[in-house]
Every structure is written in C-alpha cells, then in structure tokens.
C-alpha cells in the first residue's frame, strides 16, 4: 500500500485512540481532508523543484509509535548538552521517555503536547494557538491530522527562563522503518526569554521519516533563541516545518545545523505581526555521501520598521546536494523594512550540487533589501598560505571551513552548545583542532 493510503486508512484508528470529543478533533479532521486532497508534494511544485520525496516515500513505514524502547542515559548522554542545567523533553520513537526527561509546571509549562491537547486546563491556549501558525500545505496538514505528542512550552509574562530547554527525538526504529510526526507548540508571552535546543538523532541504521511541525508564538518584546541540530544518520529523513509568529519588538532567532541524513527539508517561516521586530535565520550545512538538504525559508514582513537577517553557509562534499530557497515578502505597509539574506556555499567535490534561489517580493517603496549568494571552492591561495606555515592540507581545509561557518557559529549564545557543535563539525571534517571558535 502506498504511504498516502496507509496514512489515510490509519487516521480512523488513530482518532479512536485519542479523545475525539475535543476542539482538536475538528482541526485534525480538516487537516486529513487537506492532506487527502493535496497528497505528498511533487517536483512539479515550484517549492519542491529540487527535492524529490519519491525515494523516501517508498519505504514501508510503521505509522504508529510502538512501545517505548528502553534507553539508558549513559548511552545517549553525548547527544545532550549536559554540562549545564536544562529542562529536557525526550522522545524515543515518538513516545515520551519520562526517565530521560525533566519537565516543569513551576511558574511555566515545559511539558508534553499530549497533556496540553487533552487536559481541560490547557484548552484555552490550545484553542487560541494550536494550528494557528502552521500553513495548510500538505505536510504540515498531515502532521496536524496525526498530532498527539511533542513538546508544549508556555512561558508566562516577564520571565527569563535561565535553563535552556532541550527537545530530543531519538529513533531506534526497533525492527522496521518508522514514521514520526512530532508536534510542538511554544508560546512565549510578553517580555519573556527562552532558549530551546531541538535535536533529532537516530540510534540505529533503521530508516526513519520525521515530519515535524513546530509553532512558535513570540509576544511583545519576547526573545526566543531556537537551535536545531538535525539528524546525521544516513537512513534518517526529516521534514521540519517551523512557523514563527512574532509580535512587536520581539526578537526570534533560529539556527539550523544540518549535518547529513538521507534527506532533510526545512520549511522555516517567519511572520512579523507588529513593528520593530527582528527575525534571525542562520544555518550551517555540512554534507557528504549522497545526502540532500533543502532549506526553504520565508520571512513575511507585514508591518513597518522591522528587520530580518538570514545567513546560511553550506559545505558540500562527495555526491551531496544542497538547496536554498529564501523568500522574502515585504508588504506595502511594511515601510522601512531592513531585510538581508546571504547564502554562501563551498563545493569540495566535483560531484556535489547546490541550487540556490533568492526570491524577493517587495511591495513597499522605502525599504532596504539585499541578498547575495556565492558558490565557490576553497581558496587555493589561502590553502598555500596556511600550508607554508606548516598546517597540513587536511587541517588547512578544515580550518578554512571552520572559518567559513564562523559567522553563524559566533551568534550561538549557549557556550556549551557552541562547543558541542564545533566538535560535531570537527568530527565531520575528520580533524582535531586545538581551539574553539
């Protein structure tokens, strides 16, 4: 059976298992209809021109999470940021793992989506925010239809959340291929500040397809720093749909670190619904083998006097493929917008490919918008310079690539996270450099 049919026929069973007597039931029912109508996106759609899902949809995924697979903390510790205190919401094959997690209801909610979707005390928030930022595109709709588990984070007014929140999805796949559909809802009220790290990590070589939706609402003057560390397992595919709605004077940043996987697609959407908003989108992509990563960004400037900054760096080796499609819309009312976008790529193999496409739709006449993309090789004269000082070729290459991604690394505000990512990059480049950036 094709995956689409399988999903459609599973929906009834799924709905019967969760509470059908809720507001969410109607949302899910609408969503499955949308998915049924639209199906999976194909390369015929402009937004999917360079990314084909065909191959990954052929697998026979099991669409319901199975029993929790026991994992010992010591075996997965390295995937956490552990040198500092943090909240943790951990899932194994889509199921909440209480013994690896540390949630809270003390003055804020850092807990589970399943609780938020079913308990009456969250009803108002759910009715107000759930599925209010996600688009009606087929993949977010599919996630909405099956949404039952994920992270639920609600930070009240005037709160500085001192510990970062880690949302970690482990997949083991047990005996077969697994499809996961985590759903996160994050509401940050006025003047509050939160840092969130989201990580997807396969622990085995079993295939996994994750279709994730995260909705983030940043109210007036809220600050949200979101870091995504994406799966590097070669049998893992990830479709990440993230939607941020920002109110006036809020500052939201999303850093996306894509280090591989079979196929990764990031649909990252920012909507500016107020004045003097800042939106920051940064990414480092390092690929090899036949890996494919597609960054599809949207910044929608709706109101005047706002800014957006996009900076994506990519390093592509072997037969890997990268896509960057950055869309900026500046509405007629959004005067004095400052929108910047840059996408720089290095191809370190003759067989690697990058498709990069800035897409600007500007309807206001008093704005500053700039975009630039570069595709190049490592600078030969810089290589000779470094080698002439005794730095061997491999290390010199690594140092140049580090340096290349430094602009993005320098804005990571959690030092432990920065160190960890630097280490992952070093690992990927197969070197050990004696310093952090």
């Amino acid at each position, binding site marked *: 059976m094709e995956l689409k049919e399988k999903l459609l026929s599973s929906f009834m069973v799924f709905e019967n298992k969760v509470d059908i007597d809720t507001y969410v039931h109607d949302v899910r029912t609408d969503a499955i209809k949308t998915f049924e109508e639209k199906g999976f996106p194909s390369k015929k759609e402009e937004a999917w021109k360079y990314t084909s899902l065909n191959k990954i949809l052929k697998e026979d995924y099991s669409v319901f999470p199975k029993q929790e697979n026991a994992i010992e903390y010591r075996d997965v510790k390295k995937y956490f940021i552990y040198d500092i205190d943090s909240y943790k919401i951990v899932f194994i094959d889509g199921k909440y793992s209480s013994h690896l997690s540390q949630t809270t209801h003390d003055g804020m909610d850092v807990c589970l989506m399943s609780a938020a979707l079913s308990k009456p005390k969250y009803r108002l928030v759910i009715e107000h925010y759930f599925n209010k930022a996600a688009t009606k595109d087929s993949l977010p709709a599919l996630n909405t239809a099956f949404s039952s588990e994920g992270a639920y984070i609600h930070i009240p007014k005037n709160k500085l959340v001192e510990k970062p929140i880690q949302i970690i999805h482990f997949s083991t796949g047990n005996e077969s291929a697994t499809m996961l559909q985590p759903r996160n809802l994050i509401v940050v009220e006025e003047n509050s500040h939160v840092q969130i790290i989201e990580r997807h990590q396969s622990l085995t070589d079993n295939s996994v397809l994750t279709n994730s939706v995260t909705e983030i609402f940043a109210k007036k003057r809220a600050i949200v720093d979101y870091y995504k560390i994406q799966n590097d397992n070669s049998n893992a595919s990830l479709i990440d749909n993230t939607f941020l709605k920002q109110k006036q004077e809020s500052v939201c940043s999303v850093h996306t670190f894509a280090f591989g996987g079979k196929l990764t697609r990031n649909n990252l959407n920012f909507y500016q619904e107020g004045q003097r908003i800042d939106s920051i989108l940064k990414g480092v992509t390092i690929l090899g083998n036949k890996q494919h990563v597609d960054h599809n960004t949207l910044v929608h400037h709706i109101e005047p006097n706002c800014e957006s900054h996009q900076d994506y760096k990519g390093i592509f080796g072997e037969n890997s493929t990268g896509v960057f499609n950055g869309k900026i819309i500046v509405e007629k009312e959004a005067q004095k917008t400052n929108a910047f976008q840059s996408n720089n790529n290095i191809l370190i193999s003759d067989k690697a490919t990058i498709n990069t496409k800035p897409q600007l739709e500007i309807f206001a006449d008093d704005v500053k918008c700039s975009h630039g993309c570069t595709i190049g090789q490592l600078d*030969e004269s*810089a290589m000779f310079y470094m080698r*002439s*000082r005794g730095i*061997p070729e491999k290390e010199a290459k690594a*140092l140049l690539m580090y*340096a290349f991604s430094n*602009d993005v690394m320098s804005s990571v505000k959690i030092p432990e996270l920065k160190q960890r990512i630097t280490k992952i990059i070093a690992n990927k480049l197969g070197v050990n450099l*004696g310093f952090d950036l």
Partner: protein
Amino acid sequence: MLKINNLHASVEDKSILKGINLEVKPGEVHAIMGPNGSGKSTLASVVAGKEDYEVTKGNIEFNGEDIDELAAEERAHKGVFLSFQYPIEIPGVSVTNFIKTAINESRKAQGLEDMPAKDMLKLIREKADLLEIDRKFLSRSLNEGFSGGEKKRNEIFQMAMLEPKLAILDETDSGLDIDALRIVANGVNKLKSKDNAVVVITHYQRLLDHIVPDFVHVLYNGKIVKSGTKELAHELEEKGYDWIKEEVNA
C-alpha cells in the same frame, strides 16, 4: 643550508625560472633584487612549495636533502618560511588561533606534544612585544582589514613564533612606512643567528639599510645575472636596472 642547482620552473607551460644557481649558508643574509617580472616571487614560491609551479629541471636542496617533491607544509616543518608579499586574508580565524595551529602542527610533525597553553601564551606575548604588536590585534581575524604595515608585521610575528632555519622575505618592505620598516627590520635582525639564514627579496635598497646583506644577487629574466656584496645594491639604487639589462642583452 639552501642549495639551488640549475633550477628551471614554469607555470602553465610558461617558463619563468631558467637556470637558477644559489647557495645560502647558515648565518648569511642574501638579497635578491631585480626588475618587475624577473622571477623573484616565483623563486620564493617554488622554494616554499607552491604547487602551481612545475620544476622542469634542476633541484632544491635543503640541509642536504632534496625537497622538490615535498609538500609546502613538510618544507615548513623542516624550517622553510616564506613571508608573503601579499599575505592572505582569512576571515574567521584569529591571529592567535592560526599561529597556535601552525606551531602545534609543526610540533606534531616532529613527534612532539602540543605546546602547553601557558607557554604558548607567553611566547605569543614575547614575540608580539618584539614586533610592537598590540595584544588586541592578536584576536582579530588573520589579515582581515589589516593595513599593509600590519600585514607585514604579522608575517614577521609568525616568523618569530615559528623560528625557521631559512626565512624568505618576499617584498616585505612594500607597503611599509618608515616606522613600520624599522620595526620589521629590527625584528628580523633580532631573530638572526649563526644557525639561520635570511633571503630578502626586494626592489629597493632601503630595506637593505636595515637588514644588511652579505650577498646581493640580481635576478633578470629567470636567471641570476650578477652577484656581489652590499655595494651592488647601492649601485642598483643609483643606476637602476637598465645597465644590467644592457649587459645581459649585449
């Protein structure tokens, strides 16, 4: 120390060096002068191991070993240093991190452990002081936005850190004002010993007032056409290169 025998080198089939012979012994300072396009920078690059150039004839010996086939980093590990005419900007890598990496890679090649961080810091400070380099400067990205003088001072700072056996200074005086020239020359002189050697490549006499050469060679059209002592440099300063060209072409 350095022995260049009948060296021919070309880039993309264009012959540039056409039979260079040069011997540099420990403790000596050699100056290589010559008009534009005579092959001075090529000679420096070929000795340092730039792969764009192909050695078509002859060889380069360093301390008795043929180094033609060695990679640039291997030559550096043996003690060859090239101060670039145009130092390369490397955004994102600080001066400190760069030199740390260079030193520790050289140590690794010699089977040594990394230099302890404390010793490294001390050494960096000591050498920065020698070149009158501001500490703040050390945390800036390598050569990025540096003035001409800062770039050259940074080259000599790296030389001071790496303590090479043979330092080739390619047009280190270009882009330097008189104060910077004095600082750079002073740095080079302090690093000089009976065990190491310096090859200064320059257009002009003025650097040679500060770094006094034992021998002066004139490179023209890919060959050393005249050698002498420091007086030759004065003569060139006075008379230019035309008389040399005439002598050669006659």
